[in-house]
């Protein structure tokens, strides 16, 4: 049983999990105050014969406090989150040397194109249409060049905390740095038709040597 967030397999994961945990603490405190308060009031102020409620229309000072405190917290949270948002999704956030992999999304498969030894997509040595297998080298930036053939799909790798919709008519980039060698799952995170649940790809993070070896075999049409 998995109660918490998945394994952290990219540099984004600890950052995002950190924000998640911070929000959990803040909201957890709010939760305890509100729910605890409600339960306490339910018992302490329940109707008893001869009691009368305290006749008041409010307290302006209390209003200021419980307006200002949430406002400050929320704006602070927003600004902190925005810092990481710009790093992850900003227009200029993709590292210039990122290893490009094309993701062609279609109903209902993922077709990956790997750049050949020249590390550039769109050239003759590309290894095209690798089905449902995303191999990436550990420790290096990778950028997915996403496109869709038909409807909106969405690349989602929970272990990387990476998600980006693939929209027909648009070329969208999503980057990450894998940090943990292993095998992970990729799913489609935008309803795309009756086969939406079948758009499952395997993501393999490998050492540079293993990755190169796999890529060489894939170039021969020997995909494993």
């Amino acid at each position, binding site marked *: 049983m998995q109660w918490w967030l998945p394994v952290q397999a990219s540099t984004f994961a600890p950052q995002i999990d950190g924000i998640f945990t911070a929000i959990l603490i803040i909201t957890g405190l709010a939760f305890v105050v509100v729910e605890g308060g409600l339960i306490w009031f339910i018992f302490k102020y329940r109707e008893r014969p001869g009691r009368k409620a305290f006749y008041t229309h409010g307290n302006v000072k209390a209003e200021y406090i419980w307006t200002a405190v949430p406002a400050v917290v929320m704006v602070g949270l927003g600004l902190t989150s925005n810092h990481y948002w710009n790093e992850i999704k900003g227009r200029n956030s993709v590292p210039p040397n990122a290893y490009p992999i094309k993701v062609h999304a*279609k*109903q*209902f*498969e993922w*077709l990956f194109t790997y750049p050949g030894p020249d590390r550039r997509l769109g050239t003759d040595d590309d290894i095209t249409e*690798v*089905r*449902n*297998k995303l191999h990436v080298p550990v420790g290096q930036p990778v950028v997915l060049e996403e496109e869709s053939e038909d409807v909106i799909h969405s690349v989602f790798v929970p272990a990387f905390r990476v998600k980006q919709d693939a929209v027909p008519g648009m070329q969208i980039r999503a980057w990450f740095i894998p940090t943990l060698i292993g095998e992970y799952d990729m799913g489609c995170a935008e309803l795309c*038709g*009756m*086969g939406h649940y*079948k758009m499952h*790809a*395997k993501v393999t993070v490998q050492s540079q040597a293993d990755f190169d070896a796999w890529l060489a075999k894939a170039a021969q*049409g020997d*995909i*494993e």
Partner: protein
Amino acid sequence: MRKVGVAGAFAVGLMALAVAGSGWNGAQAGATITGTIKFTGAKPVMAKIDMSDEPVCKAKYQAPPTKEDVVVNGNGTLANVFVYVKAGLPATYKAPAAAAPVVLDQDGCRYHPHVFGLLVGQTLSIKNSDGIAHNIKAKGVKNRPFNISQPNTMTTPRTFTASEVMVPLECNVHGWMKASVGVLPHPFFAVSGTDGSFKISGLPPGTYTIEAWHERYGVQTATVTVAGAQAKTQDFTFAAH
């Protein structure tokens, strides 16, 4: 002696009338057109199909399967060519009722058969022998398109209401899976097999336009005239390009 001769002639005449009056029984009489689909030019190398992500299907093969767009047989003939009567049947012709459903089987993540014919109104039994999720999308133009899924072992019947050559079928989960069905109002069609030959039998006498369709190499037509129980040969040649 003369009486026997007249009676005999009368009996033969009655029998002939009986046969004629019983309606055209295509299966037991009629002309036949046979032929071979030849292939000239360099045999194209078909890409291997990567089934590594579908182990249930991959396990069904010894050698890796290849794409089926072009299947050139060992004897230099072309398989999966749909040959059919395009024109020439009398206006009064009525096809016999379809006997049994045609089975389209998804086995090893491939359609079996790859190319086939179906009568208008005949049941197509779409069978999933793989037990894994397939969807079947029929991209008809004259026939209403449909898109249905089969998440595990099951059989779904469908029918087609209009004559259409050909209706493409595909699976979207496995992009290499493609088939083509020719829906016709008559049973005079055949598909070239592993020896490149085809045979259309039971034809009423007449002059027919025969068309041979291949999914990559297009169509070729020929005119054939048959009478009685004749057997005629009509070959087609497709060239690599």
